[in-house]
C-alpha cells in the first residue's frame, strides 16, 4: 500500500511495505468490526417510549464471553504482528550484509556531507570523494554507512528506501542500504535540528555503473553540477517568497555549489 504513494527503491523497502499490508489487514478487520458494532448499536438501541433498557452487569460468564473471546483473538493477532515485525526488523537493523561500498554521512546545521570511501573501501584515505547535499550511489550494490552529527541530533532519511536513522553528536551509528532503482530522490533531515531544519535536504542519485563513473570523473575535474541544485531549480512549483530571501538557504546552496 505504501508503494502506491511512493516508489519502493531499496532491497528492504518491499518488506516494510508488506509488513504495513499485514498489519493493515489485521487492524482493518478489528476496526470494521468494532466501528460497525458502535454504529449498529447506536442506531438499533435508540430510545423508544415505554421500552426500558436491559439490565446487564457484564459480570456473568455468559455475558463476559462477548468481550473475552474477541480479546483472546486480539492476543493471537498481536503475536502475529510481533513475529512479523521482528523478522523484518532483525533483517534491517540487526544484521549487516557484506558490503560493496562504504560511506560516511555527516549531519550538521543545516546540510549533509557525504564521504565515499572510494575504490579502496577505506575512509580517510586519498581516494575519498566528498560531496555536500548530494549523494551518488550505484544501483544493486550494498552500502554501509557510518552516520555522525557535528552539532545537534539530525536524522538521515531517504523515504524511497524506507530508511530513517537518527544521527547523534558524539557517536557513529552504522547501517546499510541497497538501492534497487535508478533515479534522483529526496534526502531529508527527519529530526528537529533548529532554524534551518525545514531546508535541510539533499539528493541521492542512484546510478548505473556507467553513469556513476562518468559523474565521479566530473566531480574530480570540477565540471560537475550538483543534482540537488538541479532538482531544486527545476522542481519548485510552489509559490514562496520566504525561502528565496532567506539567508540560511543560500548558505546550504553555496556549500553545495563548491563541489
Amino acid at each position, binding site marked *: 500500500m505504501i508503494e502506491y*504513494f511512493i516508489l519502493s527503491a531499496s532491497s528492504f523497502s518491499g518488506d516494510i511495505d508488506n509488513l504495513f499490508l499485514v498489519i493493515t489487514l489485521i487492524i482493518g478487520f478489528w476496526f470494521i468490526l468494532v466501528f460497525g458494532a458502535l454504529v449498529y448499536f447506536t442506531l438499533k438501541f435508540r430510545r423508544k417510549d415505554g421500552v426500558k*433498557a436491559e*439490565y446487564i452487569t457484564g459480570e456473568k460468564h455468559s455475558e463476559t464471553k462477548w468481550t473475552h473471546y474477541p480479546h483472546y483473538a486480539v492476543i493471537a493477532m498481536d503475536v502475529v504482528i510481533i513475529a512479523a515485525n521482528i523478522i523484518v526488523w532483525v533483517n534491517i537493523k540487526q544484521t549487516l550484509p557484506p558490503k560493496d561500498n562504504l560511506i560516511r554521512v555527516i549531519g550538521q546545521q543545516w546540510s549533509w556531507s557525504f564521504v565515499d570511501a572510494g575504490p579502496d573501501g577505506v575512509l580517510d584515505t586519498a581516494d575519498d570523494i566528498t560531496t555536500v547535499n548530494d549523494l551518488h550511489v550505484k544501483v544493486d550494490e550494498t552500502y554501509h554507512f557510518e552516520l555522525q552529527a557535528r552539532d545537534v541530533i539530525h536524522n538521515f532519511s531517504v523515504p524511497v528506501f524506507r530508511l530513517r536513522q537518527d544521527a547523534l553528536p558524539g557517536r557513529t551509528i552504522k547501517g546499510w542500504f541497497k538501492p534497487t532503482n535508478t533515479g534522483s530522490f529526496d534526502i531529508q533531515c527527519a529530526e528537529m535540528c533548529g532554524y534551518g531544519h525545514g531546508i535541510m535536504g539533499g539528493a541521492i542519485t542512484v546510478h548505473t555503473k556507467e553513469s556513476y563513473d562518468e559523474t565521479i570523473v566530473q566531480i574530480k575535474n570540477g565540471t560537475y553540477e550538483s543534482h540537488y541544485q538541479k532538482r531544486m531549480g527545476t522542481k519548485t512549483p510552489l509559490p514562496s517568497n520566504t525561502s528565496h530571501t*532567506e539567508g540560511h538557504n543560500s548558505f546550504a546552496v553555496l556549500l553545495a555549489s563548491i563541489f
Partner: protein
Amino acid sequence: MSQAAAAVETGIHAEHHEDLNFLHKYILPLDHKIIAMQYIFTGMIMAIIGGYFAYAFRMQLAFPGELVPGYGLVGPGEYNMLVTNHGTIMIFWVAMPVLIAGFGNYLIPLMIGCDDMVFPRINRLSYQIFLVSALVLILSFFVKGGGFGGAWTAYPPLSSVAEYNLTDWGSSLWVLAVALEFISFLLGGINFVTTAMNARAPGMKMMDIPIAVWFIVIAVILFMASVGPLIAGAVMLFMDQRIGTTFFLPSGGGDPLLWEHLFWFFGHPEVYVVLLPTLGIVADIITVFSRKKLFGYKTVLYTAFATGGLSFVVWAHHQFIAGIDPRMANIFVVTTVLISIPLAEMMFSYIATLYGGSIELKTPMLWALSFLAAFLIGGVTGIYLGASALDVYFHDSYFVLAHFHYTFFPITIIGMFAALTFWFPKMFGRMMNETLGKIHFWGTFIPFNCIFLPLFFLGLAGQHRRIYNYQHFPDLATQELQNIRIFATVSLVVMLLFQLVFVYNFFVSMFKGEKAPDNPWRANTLEWSTSSPPPHGNFKKLPTVYRGAYEYSTPGREEDFWPQNVAPE
C-alpha cells in the same frame, strides 16, 4: 491517616462555608468548585492560543510564503516556535488543566460526597503556581530571540545550547515554565488521591466509586510516579543552558540519549495521564444516556490499572531508531503491542454497554460516542507505530502526527466538550441550548476528520514533520500533495469558525439559559443529588451511599435510575 484527614476536614468546616467577599470567593478561593473553574477557564484561554498557533502554521503550509491573515509572515524560525509551543500548550496547559485539574477538582469532592478537597490551601497554591507557569510560558514568546523552537520533546543539544537553538532565553523560560507546571500538578495530585481515598461519603465502598473519579485518581498516580525523572532532567537541562554544565553534551562527556530516556519515561505515561480522565468521563456519560449499567465495572477498572502499569515499560518505542541498541527494540515492541490487550478489552466493554440500551443522542452523548469512534482510529494506527520495523519509515512523519492527533484531539478537545456540555447544568445552574450544541458538534467533528485523515496519506508519501515549506523537497513539492495540505487547512479554518457557536452558546446559556433542575439527565452519581449549582460546602446534608454508580434500568423498579444516595425502601 484517616484521623488526620478528619481533623483537617473539621478544621476547614469552621471557617469555610460562610459568605465571602468577591476577592476571597473568586480570586483567592478555597472552594474546589471555583478552583476548578479557574483551571478550566485558564485551560480554555490557552486552548485558544494553541489553536491560533495551529491556524498560523497550517496556513503557512497551505499557502507557503504568503502573509497569514491575523498573524503575518511565518518564517522558518517562527514556524518552529509555533509548532513547539502549540504542542507544549495543548498537552501541558490544555489537556492537563482542563481534564485533570479542572474536572478532577470539580468532580472528585462532589462525586464522592464530601464538602471539599482535603487540602484546600494546597489546592489554591497549585492553581497559583500553574497560573505563574502559564505566564512564564507566554513571556517566553516575547523575549529577545523569540520563543523556543526545538520541538515539544526538546532534545538536547539543540535545546541546551543557545548557539544551536538561537533562542537563548526563550529556551530557558520554556524549561522553567514546564518545570513549574509539573510542581503545580504534583501538589494537586497529592490532594486528589488523598481526598478520593479518605473523604468518601459513608457507605461508599471502593467499588461504588464512579469510573470518572477512579480514572482521574489513576491518572494522577501515574503522573506522580513518572514525572520525577523528568523534573531531574529539566533541572539538568536548565543548568546546561544557564551555567554551562554538560549533562547532555557529548563534547563534555554528556549524552543526549539520556534526556530522551528521561523525557519518554515520563512522556509515555503522560499520554495515559491525559487519556484516562476522558475515558472515565465518557464511561459515565454513555451509561447515563443509554440508561445502562456499565458493562463489567471491575473489568474496566482493572484494564485501566493494567494499561497504567504497562505504560511504564514502553517508553523506548519513541526511540526505536534514535541510536539505542537495536536488540532492545524487540522488547519494547512486545510491551507496546501488549497494551492493545487491556485497551481493546476496555473498548469492547464500552461498546457492550450500549447493547440493549435506550440511547438518547443528547449533545454530551454525541461527544462521548464520537470520542470512541475517533479514539478507535488513533488506537489502531498506534499498532503500526509500535512495530519497530515500520517505525523505520514512519518515524517523525505525518503518519505519526495524524496518529497522535487522532488520540490527542479526541482526548483533549472532544473530551473537554463532552464534560462541559454534560456538567454545564450542574456548574452554572442552567441548561445549554441543544440545537446549537448539535450544530457545534457536527461543525467540529466532521472538519476534524477532514483535517487529520488526509495527513495519514501525506505520511505514507514520506512527508516529514516540522517543516515550514515543502518546496525544498522536490518529491514532496507536487501539486497533488499540496492540494491535500490546502484541504486540511481549509477544514481547520471551518472548524475554528464553528467554535464561535460554542462560545456563543456557552456564555448566553450561562446567563440566560433555561434554569436547570438538580438532576436534568436523571443520573445516579452524587453530584446530581445536590442543587445546581451546588452551594458552598456542596451538600446541605452530607449524603450516605447505598449502591454503585451505575444502577440504571434495574429490574423491579418503576424508575430507570437509582441514585447512589437514595435509601432502599
